[in-house]
Each structure stands twice: as C-alpha cells, then as structure tokens.
C-alpha cells in the first residue's frame, strides 16, 4: 500500500535525486550540521554524566539527528510538540545550550525548576512545547493548537513528533482524527526508529508501513528516509505548504533507527542484535549530510573535528558551571500548582518548611 519513500541522498550521502534537491542557504545548512554534531556530543556527555551519577538519566537522539531539518523547513512561529528525541529543533531555534545543560542538572537555573527528568524539556520562547512522559498525548494537543491557528487565521502550523510505539496510543488516534476532520494546519511526524524500548515494529503494528495509517484518517501521507536530511526537509516543507494553503494535515513517516539504548536505564543487548545496529550505523545521518555538504563546499574535510572540539570545550565548561549550582529550594515546592497559591497549599508549605534543614 505504501507510497514511495522519499530519498534524496543515498546511504553514503550521494545525491540521487537532483529534482527534489532543495535550495537551502548555506548558512542554514551549516548551522543545521553544527546542531547535529552538537547533538551527538550531548549524547556522549549525557551518558557519561549519568554513569558518573552526576545527572540522573539520559535520553539519546543518536541516529535520529536528521530531524533538525524540520527546524529549517518550519518558521520559528510554528509550534513544535516534541516527543523526547528532538532536542535539535530547540537548539536550532536558539534555545541556549546553557539552558539545556542546567536543565540536565536540574539546578537552580533550570527553567523547569528541577521538576522534570533530564531531557524532557520545552521552551515557550522557542514554541517548543514541554513534553510529558506518557506516550502519545502530545499528538492531539498539537491538533488543538493547529485548530487554534486555523480559527485565528494565522499562517502558522503546528508540528508534532512521536515514535512508532506512540502510533498505538489513544491520542495518536484522536490526534490524527481531530486534525483531519477539522482540516487544521498540523504536521504529524512519526520517527519510526523500529523499536519501542524492546518491542519491535512488527509487534507494534501489522500495517505495511506507518504512513499507511494516514489513509484511514483521510489524511495526506509521506514516507521518507529519516536519516536523509534533505528528504526530511523536503517532506516537512511540502507538508507545511499544504497546511498553510488550507489543505489540511500530513502524516510523515520518517524511517530511521534508534542507534543508542532507549534511555540510560536500558540494555538493548537483551533484545536486539549488534548486527542490526551496525547495519544502521552505516546509514548515519550526520555522515551522509557531511558528505553532501562537502560536495557542496559548505564544509571541508576536518571541519567536523574542529566543530566537535569546539563544542566539547563549550560543553565541558557549561557542565562544570552547572554542576556547581545548587538546586531549587524547598520553598518552591508549591509554586505553579495553581496561578495563585490557595490557602491549603500555604498550610502544607508552612508544614514542610520546618524540614528545610533536613
């Protein structure tokens, strides 16, 4: 049933579809590449910090870095509902690396006030919505936001990311359906990385492809090689155009792979083979994009190493600083439950403050 998979770069990064090759300014291409390199490094640092007991948890983006392309295809005013492996979109939009590091440490400078698991962050300034942990809930929320844009007559779109596992969730279903019925400007992007923790795609759905699910909602569908930065860009651009034109939402299936463990708590060797991982490592999105950029003279050989070194230094510095900062104080425990603190919370707060020194 599946429509053709969009590929512009082959597994080695050679341009194989010049017709579709998008025209992206070099500065943007470069910035995208930098963001992807940075993501790779954040994974390395993150898991090290977790192993050292300095942060409590790490979520990997490794292998799925091509998602950064969406940030180029979208406008900054477009809303993004991430799942939890889309750090690149926030970073590309200018979310400060310092904020991310402080968030990982859940320290006093963490915008979420030390309340979230590291990696589950959002930023209102960047229209990058704070995700929860329950899988799939953001899909329908994104549809609601898209509807808001529609009835206000804005030229923006609402974009949502979710995994292959999430397609089984209740709110994938409601989210796809509500978006399609109301013809709202929504882009649904499934990062089909073949696994939901230890559950392989074949136990998740019997469909030939996830993109086939679009049909049952009367929605446009596109399938892309999710490790192909250019294909990712083209699909999101097409979907965006369609959405702002008033032609309704699109489901994009990005076929990719979760190269790392699910999270720092996971041991994938229990349930999948090294060979499979190896196979996909060969299709690495950063390597492919790098080759393309070199061919386009956006990058030179050696640039990547320099970049890595630069970010490594910067991250080390930020980490050192972040590690020194204290956590939020006990007096903040009752903030933000409601806009104004009701009396019963004032009483609970008074009680707990007795234990401040413990």
């Amino acid at each position, binding site marked *: 049933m599946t429509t053709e998979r969009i590929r512009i770069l082959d597994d080695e990064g050679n341009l194989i579809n010049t017709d579709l090759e998008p025209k992206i300014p070099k500065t943007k291409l470069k910035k995208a590449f930098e963001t992807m390199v940075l993501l790779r490094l954040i994974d390395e640092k993150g898991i090290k910090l977790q192993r050292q007991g300095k942060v409590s948890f790490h979520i990997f983006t490794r292998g799925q870095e091509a998602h950064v392309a969406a940030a180029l295809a979208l406008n900054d005013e477009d*809303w993004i509902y991430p799942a939890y492996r889309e750090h690149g979109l926030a970073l590309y939009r200018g979310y400060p690396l310092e904020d991310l590091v402080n968030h990982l440490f859940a320290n006093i400078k*963490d*915008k*979420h*006030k030390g*309340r*979230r698991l590291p990696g589950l962050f*959002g*930023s*209102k300034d960047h229209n990058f*919505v*704070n995700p*929860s942990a*329950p899988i799939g*809930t953001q*899909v*329908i*929320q*994104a*549809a*609601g*936001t*898209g*509807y*808001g*844009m529609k*009835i*206000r007559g804005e030229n923006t779109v*609402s974009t949502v990311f979710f995994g292959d596992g999430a397609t089984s969730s*209740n*709110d994938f*279903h*409601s*989210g796809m*359906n*509500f978006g399609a*019925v*109301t013809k709202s400007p929504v882009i649904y992007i499934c990062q089909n990385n073949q696994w939901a923790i230890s559950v392989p795609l074949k136990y998740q759905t019997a469909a030939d492809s996830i993109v086939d699910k679009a049909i049952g909602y009367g929605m446009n569908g596109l399938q892309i090689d999710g490790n192909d930065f250019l294909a990712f860009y083209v699909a999101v651009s097409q979907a965006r155009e369609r959405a702002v034109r008033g032609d309704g939402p699109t489901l994009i299936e990005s076929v990719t792979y979760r190269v790392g463990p699910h999270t720092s708590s996971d041991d994938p060797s229990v349930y999948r083979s090294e060979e499979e991982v190896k196979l996909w490592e060969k299709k690495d999105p950063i390597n492919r994009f790098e080759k393309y950029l070199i061919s386009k003279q956006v990058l030179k050989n050696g640039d990547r190493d320099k970049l890595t070194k630069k970010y490594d230094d910067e991250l080390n510095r930020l980490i050192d600083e972040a590690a020194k900062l204290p956590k939020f104080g006990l007096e903040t425990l009752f*903030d*933000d*439950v*409601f*806009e104004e603190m*009701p*009396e*019963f919370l004032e009483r609970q707060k008074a009680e707990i403050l007795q234990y401040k020194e413990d």
Partner: protein
Amino acid sequence: MVDTNIVGAINMALKEEMERDNNVVILGEDIGKDGGVFRATQGLIDKFGRDRVLDTPLSESGIIGFATGLALYGVRAIAEIQFVDFIWPAADQIISEVAKFRYRSGGEYTCPMVIRSPYGGGVKGAHYHSQSPESIFAHTAGLKIVIPSNPFDAKGLLISAIRDSDPVLFLEPKRIYRAFTEEVPEDDYTVPLGKANVVKEGTDLTLVSYGSMLHVTLEAASLAEDEGISCEVIDLRSIVPLDLDTIGMSVMKTGRFISVTEAPKTSGFSAELSALVAENWIEYMEAPILRVTGYDTPFPLTLESFYLPTPKRVLDNIKKSVSF
C-alpha cells in the same frame, strides 16, 4: 433578572462569555445543532458558528487533548463531556497533562480551560449515566473542582471558572438541571471559587454537602428542625479549593459533623471532609464524624432511590449524632 433553571443559567453564562470574549470556544459531542443532549449549548452554534462551537468526533480523550492544545496556544476552551461517566477515556489527558502543565514547565505553559460535565444519579440512568467522580479529580493536584447547587451559583461560578487561570472541572448536577427556577441576573456577575455558602445557620450540628445532595441535606435539616434539632447547612460550591475556614467555624460551634455525598463511600470526598475535621477539630467533636453517601457498588437502576442518600437516611444520622 430572568427566571431560569440550572441548565438555563449555564446556557446564559456560556452565551455571555462567548459574546464578551471571542477567544472563548466550546467543543464536545452533540453541542452544535443538537444543542447538547441536555440543551445546555442550545442556540450557540447559530450565534457563534461552527468554528467556535465545535461538534467533535466521539472521543473524550480527543476533546480534552484538543482543548489542551487550544489552551496552551491561548484560546479559552470550554469542553463538554456529555456525561461525566464518559470522562475516563480522557483521564490521561486530565490527570497527566491538564493538571500538570503549569507545574512541569515551571510556570511557562498554562492550561486554563473549563471541563463541563453533568454528573450524578437520580435520573434513572443506571451504571453509566449517574456517577460522581469528584473525589478522584480532587486527588489530582492542579485541578479546581466546582459543583453548583442552584441557578444563581451555576451562572456565577461558571463565569468565574471560564475566567480562571487554572483548569476547572465544572460538574453539573443533572438531577436538578430543571428541578426549580430562580431569579438570575442577566448581566455579568461572578461567584468566587473557593467560598462556601452557609445556606442555613444552626447550632447543634454541621451538615456539609454540594450539588444535588445539598437539597437532600436541606430537606433533612428541615425534618430535624421539626424534631428540635438545629442544623447548620453548608454548600461547598467548590471542593478544590475548599473553604476549610467556614467548615471549621461551624464545627467549633456545633461539635457535630455529617457530610452528604452521593458517590460510593470508600475514598469519596466525604472521607476527605471527615479526615479534615478529625485532624483539625477533634477536640470540639461530641459525636462520631459521619458520612452519608452512596454505597460501594456500581450505580444501580431500579434501586437507585435507596442507593442515593435520602432525607430520611440523613435524618437518622443526625439523630445518631445528637443522641451519641
């Protein structure tokens, strides 16, 4: 002033708020042409159009999640759940998302919205058109829970809820939707959330209730009066935030306490009320702290008049308390 019942008052509040602020949108099943299965949204689609009066697909999870996306974006959404018995598909959106957005984002994202839903028994609705789940949502930090007992409050509380910065679950006592009318101002007024109403003053015993049970409670109080027992009756109006001071003032005066709620007994909101009294004012209490509630069974059909608290059953508990 118009003479209207609770549904009428709700319809007024919705209409006026939608007129006042075109950022207010309502959504739910059958709320458009049909005007809602209880007619609470009657006429609104003609006045405000489908964009702002959205008949949704049959998915409560969708309704609340969609409203959440609207709320985050800055649109004030009022979602209707056709019967609160059908709220469970939306439990994840309400408990995991709506209630926690402000907190989890450190105050960046907020989720002000109203979830309106008819609740409660007494309409021959059986298992799935009769339940009262307020205590479950009261246990969920971040939600306000409002339950009016009369048309005046219904309108004033709903307007407050719509203008509130936090998510509000607004439970409507369907049993008394059309039970009586009263004068309701046509213009803009609010009844504040978190302030109980002492409906009747008394000296011997404190009765606390809300919603449709308030009327059962009042009847019981009047029966008790006939027997020379003076009951103070408090209508909570909202259970989160709760007006603990009003309860405290009353029990310090009366020394006796009974709450009347229709949900199953175990872990119902009556338990919370008993616990609050027992932890704060036990030294004033001259009798057991009692609850008159529904029973721990699924909601019945033919036996619902026994299942629900009756004035007689409340009265017996009043007597038990005063003769302790």
